[in-house]
């Protein structure tokens, strides 16, 4: 009698303990010019191999620097029919360019190249050269048809670099979920993508790099979300006049964005949105970024200003822990 009554309890305890034993598996590889790592619980080797192949396929199709990629063909000939994947990403990215009023512009690529960021052969283009290049920058002149055919005006070139890693994170998260994984964390060269929460049920602790050094600003707790940071410190050079020139371009001026921000972190459900917004908000500067957040509110962000302030949306402030001895002034962005 007692034994029968206790049996369900025993089974429940066994299940509980089995849950504690989820097995960690991991993969690390280079893709999209970065180092990527995946830590997933209860994922077999085949699933992680599929993840690696998925990124390689995306890169093969969409990298602007691969001569045979769909994007390279577009930039050479002015038109191409994109794969379903490429078309979906481009459609999403163009919508984000419009939403950010051009603070993100996929067609700024010729300007980025003129500054030498594609080859690391850095130089400062003169005003006349930039004016000529800026005449070719305008995402609104890109046409994308329902069948995936994209056409750009003569001289325009597109680059999906500002959204590709975020998109890849979304794709990989979905691949892992479809494979039955409920707990995983992916690092795609500075983009963090999480699947579910940690195996112990707590949220993932995602540290955010301090733009002024090797340390961390603090830790953001995240679950089923992407955490993406854009910072001037990632890629830059110092010109002959001693001015720091970083890779994040202001599409309106053709110069590296000097908006008063040095780092922007965006937390949200979709990696592609976080990736696009981390760049766009950086270009906008604190004031416009705060307005953008108040108008949309479907993401959280952390802005670091040149003068040492750390601005957080209220929702992020509640799950952000500053690092020991952080010297920044922490401020919460006004709700209205």
């Amino acid at each position: 009698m007692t034994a029968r009554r206790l049996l369900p309890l025993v089974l429940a305890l066994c299940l509980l303990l089995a849950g504690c034993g989820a097995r960690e598996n991991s993969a690390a590889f280079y893709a999209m010019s970065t180092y990527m790592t995946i830590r997933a619980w209860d994922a077999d080797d085949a699933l992680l191999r599929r993840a690696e192949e998925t990124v390689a396929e995306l890169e093969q199709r969409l990298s602007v620097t691969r001569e045979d990629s769909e994007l390279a063909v577009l930039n050479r000939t002015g038109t191409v029919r994109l794969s379903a994947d490429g078309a979906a990403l481009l459609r999403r990215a163009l919508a984000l360019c419009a939403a950010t009023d051009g603070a993100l512009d996929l067609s700024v690529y010729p300007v980025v190249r003129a500054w030498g960021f594609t080859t690391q052969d850095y130089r400062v283009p003169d005003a006349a050269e930039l004016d000529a290049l800026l005449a070719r920058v305008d995402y609104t002149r890109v046409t994308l048809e329902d069948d995936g055919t994209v056409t750009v005006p003569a001289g325009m070139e597109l680059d999906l670099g500002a959204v590709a890693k975020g998109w890849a994170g979304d794709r990989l998260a979905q691949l892992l979920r479809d494979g039955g994984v409920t707990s995983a964390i992916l690092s795609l060269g500075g983009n963090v993508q999480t699947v579910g929460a940690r195996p112990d049920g707590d949220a993932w602790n995602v540290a955010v790099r301090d733009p002024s050094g090797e340390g961390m600003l603090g830790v953001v707790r995240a679950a089923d979300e992407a955490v993406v940071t854009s910072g001037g410190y990632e890629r830059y050079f110092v010109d002959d006049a001693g001015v720091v020139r970083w890779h994040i371009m202001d599409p309106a001026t053709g110069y590296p964005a000097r908006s008063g921000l040095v780092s922007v972190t965006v937390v949200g459900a979709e990696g592609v949105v976080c990736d696009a917004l981390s760049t766009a908000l950086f270009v906008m500067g604190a004031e416009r970024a705060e307005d953008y957040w108040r108008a949309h509110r479907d993401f959280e962000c952390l802005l670091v200003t040149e003068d040492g302030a750390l601005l957080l949306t209220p929702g992020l402030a509640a799950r952000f822990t500053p690092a020991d001895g952080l010297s920044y002034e922490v401020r919460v962005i006004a709700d209205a």
Partner: protein
Amino acid sequence: MLKTKTWVAALVALAAVLAVLALALRHARAPGTVVEVVQDGVVLRTIDLARVTEAYSFTVTSADGGSNVVLVEPGRIRVSSADCPDQICVQRGWLSDQAAPVVCLPHRLALRLRGETAADAVAG
């Protein structure tokens, strides 16, 4: 029948011990020396008291203009002065207990101890 009962009892005992162990391990974070300075639910600063070598102080200003001066010394922290009406935070003295943070209710400020957290990944 007795045999079954014994087995079940043994299994239950074993499972219970393992479950308690698992939970204990999960929550076994050192009481720690890390203090959070929290205002209105927002962590403004995190300070590891074990790494403080020289005393210093800083002022926290609340939304309505009130201020608390926080004094940090090697291994300990307190509110040293404040312009709040009740002065409870100042009278509390040094923060000593994880379960009892030093609180300034009028200014919605708290000093609290926490355990260590290690990051799972780094963005940026």
